[in-house]
């Protein structure tokens, strides 16, 4: 009885956040805002769904695999979003006009103007 209630609760939270993530991808106004939605909301939704499954089928293998999947998702989602945001910034996807501070700009400009690190002797 109580486990079923817990499973339904976790399932509802998970589905809600998955839907919010998709809605954010569609509706948010610019690219850097849209990047937030799948990174945070979908991760939370998937963690909740995995919890629901682990409560629903309480075996050792299930719980181990669910925890493993949680670790994978928790590690890979921020990495992928970071790479995407950096690639978009370096490919001159414009920041929204309301941006006040752009802390990455000096670093990116410096890196652009830096001389090549070393000359390959085979080129000479």
């Amino acid at each position, binding site marked *: 009885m109580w486990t079923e209630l817990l499973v339904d609760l976790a*399932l509802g939270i*998970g589905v809600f956040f*998955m*839907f919010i993530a998709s809605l954010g991808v*569609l509706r948010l106004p610019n*690219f850097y805002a849209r990047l937030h939605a799948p990174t945070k909301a*979908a991760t939370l939704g*998937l963690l909740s769904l995995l919890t629901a499954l682990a409560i629903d089928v309480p075996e050792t293998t299930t719980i181990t*695999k669910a925890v493993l999947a949680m670790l994978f998702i928790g590690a890979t989602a921020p990495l992928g979003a970071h790479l*995407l945001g950096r690639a978009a910034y370096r490919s001159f996807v414009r920041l929204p006009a309301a941006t006040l501070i752009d802390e990455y700009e000096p670093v990116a400009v410096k890196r652009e103007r830096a001389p090549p690190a070393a000359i390959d002797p085979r080129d000479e």
Partner: protein
Amino acid sequence: MNPAPLLGLAVVGVGMVLCGVRIVRGPTAFDRLAAFDCLVLDAIGGVLLMSMRLETAEYLDAVLIVTLLGFLGTVSLATYLEGTLVD
């Protein structure tokens, strides 16, 4: 039978459609890539809901593999679009 997983599948399906709209519409390739990432996560959620509907945990291996494949696809496409892919 518990109707909650089926209802959840319907909602996640609607979410996949929303991501598909962003993939079609997205102004830049990066928007499409982010939306595709979200689509993969939605598909994983669908697999989890389906395995809850069937009362089995057989599909958790598929969940693990699809997670890693989605990450691999995102990373490789992002580096390709950035132009720093080492040949």
